């Protein structure tokens, strides 16, 4: 019972929070509003999924926000240059993958810690985004086909939610049903043992960072479509919330480990909180304080679990 509570405690707390918001905030539990929350959460969830996959491989990718921005800017610049939008999308995605490849090679070939390598790659991505845009946003003139990818819907389901579901299904399949996924997990949790078991750990870490960049690229491109605009800082702000969501996720379902379901719970808590507190009419600084407190609590909880795992609860 205690173990189960430990595993699912955050989920229960999230449910309690949602129930409280549903009671207190008129309209919070309306299906339309819940759909809005899920739609808004999709972009952050896609980015946080990538962050989780890198963390599963034992690497920290602090460039995901800036890589998402670069993908967005490359796509928008090409659209504005008259290139067909599917090609522009592809180019934006390739730009993101290039960032992931550079980070991965820095980590695996040059033995640069991922914290530093991804910070550097993020800075380069920001520089290139400013180089392309000159600091000016691309607004309007986006083809309807592209905009539809971010604003359209399939029946009542907004398309960003559909992309998220597909991504999560693919990521879950990779981690739970494939040898590559198992190797990725092993490389992150016990790299020495994985190496002894014949797993190419460096390759797995490179894969983790590539997957993070791919998710970042997808997030940036969908943001471009949804907002019909791009700017050299469009997704930068999402990094901190992505970290918060992943840390919050590490407190639940598989406590102490980065896990996709936990990340999704984290994202939904963050997005529900922003929506619910707005419906309650609370000002922006209350939202910032609430998010900060949740981050502190989740980091504290995760740190305690990690310590318990490492030292058997001894202090």
């Amino acid at each position, binding site marked *: 019972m205690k173990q189960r509570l430990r595993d699912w405690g955050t989920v229960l707390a999230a449910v309690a929070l949602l129930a409280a*918001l549903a009671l*207190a905030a008129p309209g919070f539990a309306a299906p*339309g509003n819940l759909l809005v929350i899920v739609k808004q959460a999709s972009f952050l969830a896609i980015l946080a999924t990538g962050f989780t996959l890198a963390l599963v491989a034992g690497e920290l990718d602090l460039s995901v926000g800036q890589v998402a921005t670069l993908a967005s800017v490359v796509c928008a610049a090409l659209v504005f240059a008259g290139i067909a939008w599917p090609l522009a999308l592809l180019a934006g995605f390739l730009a993101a993958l290039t960032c992931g490849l550079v980070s991965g090679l820095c980590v695996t070939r040059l033995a640069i810690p991922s914290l530093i390598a991804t910070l550097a790659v993020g800075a380069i991505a920001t520089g290139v985004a400013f180089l392309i845009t000159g*600091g000016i946003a691309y607004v309007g003139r986006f083809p309807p086909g592209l905009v539809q990818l971010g604003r359209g819907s399939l029946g009542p389901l907004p398309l960003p939610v559909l992309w998220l579901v597909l991504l999560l299904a693919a990521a879950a399949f990779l981690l739970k049903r494939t040898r590559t996924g198992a190797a990725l997990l092993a490389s992150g949790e016990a790299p020495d043992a994985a190496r002894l078991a014949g797993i190419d750990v460096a390759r797995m870490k490179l894969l983790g960072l590539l997957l993070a960049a791919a998710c970042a690229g997808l997030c940036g491109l969908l*943001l471009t479509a949804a907002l019909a605009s791009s700017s050299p800082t469009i997704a930068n702000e*999402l990094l901190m919330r992505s970290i918060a969501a992943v840390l919050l996720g590490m*407190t639940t379902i598989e406590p102490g480990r980065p896990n996709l379901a936990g990340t999704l719970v984290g994202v939904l808590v963050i997005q529900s*909180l922003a929506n619910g507190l*707005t419906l309650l009419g609370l000002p922006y600084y209350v939202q910032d304080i609430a998010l900060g407190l949740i981050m502190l609590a989740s980091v504290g909880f995760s740190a305690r679990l990690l310590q318990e795992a490492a030292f058997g609860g001894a202090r």
Partner: protein
Amino acid sequence: MRRLLVLVAAAAVWAGGNTPAMAVKLGIVAFQMSAETHARTANAAKAAAEDKGWEVTLLNSAGSVPDHAAQIENLVQKGVDAILLAMGKPLQAEAQLAAAKAKKIPVVTVMSGTSPHTLFDVTVNEFEVGAKIGVYLLGLLDYKGNILMSRYEGHGGTKIRGRVMDIILEENSGVKVLGSHAMARTQSWREDVKAGMEALVLRHAGKFQAVWASFDGQAFVIDDILQAQGLKKGQVYLTGVDGGQEAFRRIRDPSSLMTATVAIPFELMGEAAVDALDDVLAGTPKSDITPGPYLFMDAVLVDANNVPAEGEWPW
């Protein structure tokens, strides 16, 4: 963690039960509350609305376009009676503003540009502002000499001021631009301006008689650079646009090189937007408030002759 969430939920329930019944619900979204001009506008609008007994939800997009769009969407979900955007991004949030319009929620913006989904933009005529400060500066130089320029093309208003200055310089060929720096970054803009303008000031030391800045924040950074070079008031003229208390203090300060600014009445604009929404909600046709997409306010040129005392305003 669970205790924290219970506390948040309890606060939410408390807040939900403490909103005045039947009050007009106004949502205010400021794009970047850390920018003085955004905060002045939003805070004044909030105060004006609360004076009318309205229930105000004040949100800060913190410079993030995705957050900006999500916050407008959340306000629509909340079912506010009206929305006010302070220095908002109506083009990027087009889908969300269209949703507001579909729900017959009037949206008035302040210095945000226009949109088919908003009623009008409370603003100053930036062409007039640019002309005021540009012609004033050339007058100080007796229409001859050299200047440096600090531009910002990423905002509609500052861009127009720069273009107007270009035309003034074209028509008055006795004044030459020795160097120009275009600020690109929005989040670390002070460092950007400092690096760019310091290089220009050092390169052209002793050869320029004035510096034109597209807004006061830039002028403050440049003022500090000029003072560090040992220059005294009157040796180099320095102008900006915006006109807050810091600009007035520098104009009064004998050690500062700040010469003049055009003071934009941000507080009055916030109040005017609230008054206009009050009229619209009372049934006044939009065309009776202003015929076009703009509601223009007057900006005042402030120099040593009319600079207000500490805490005072020029209107």
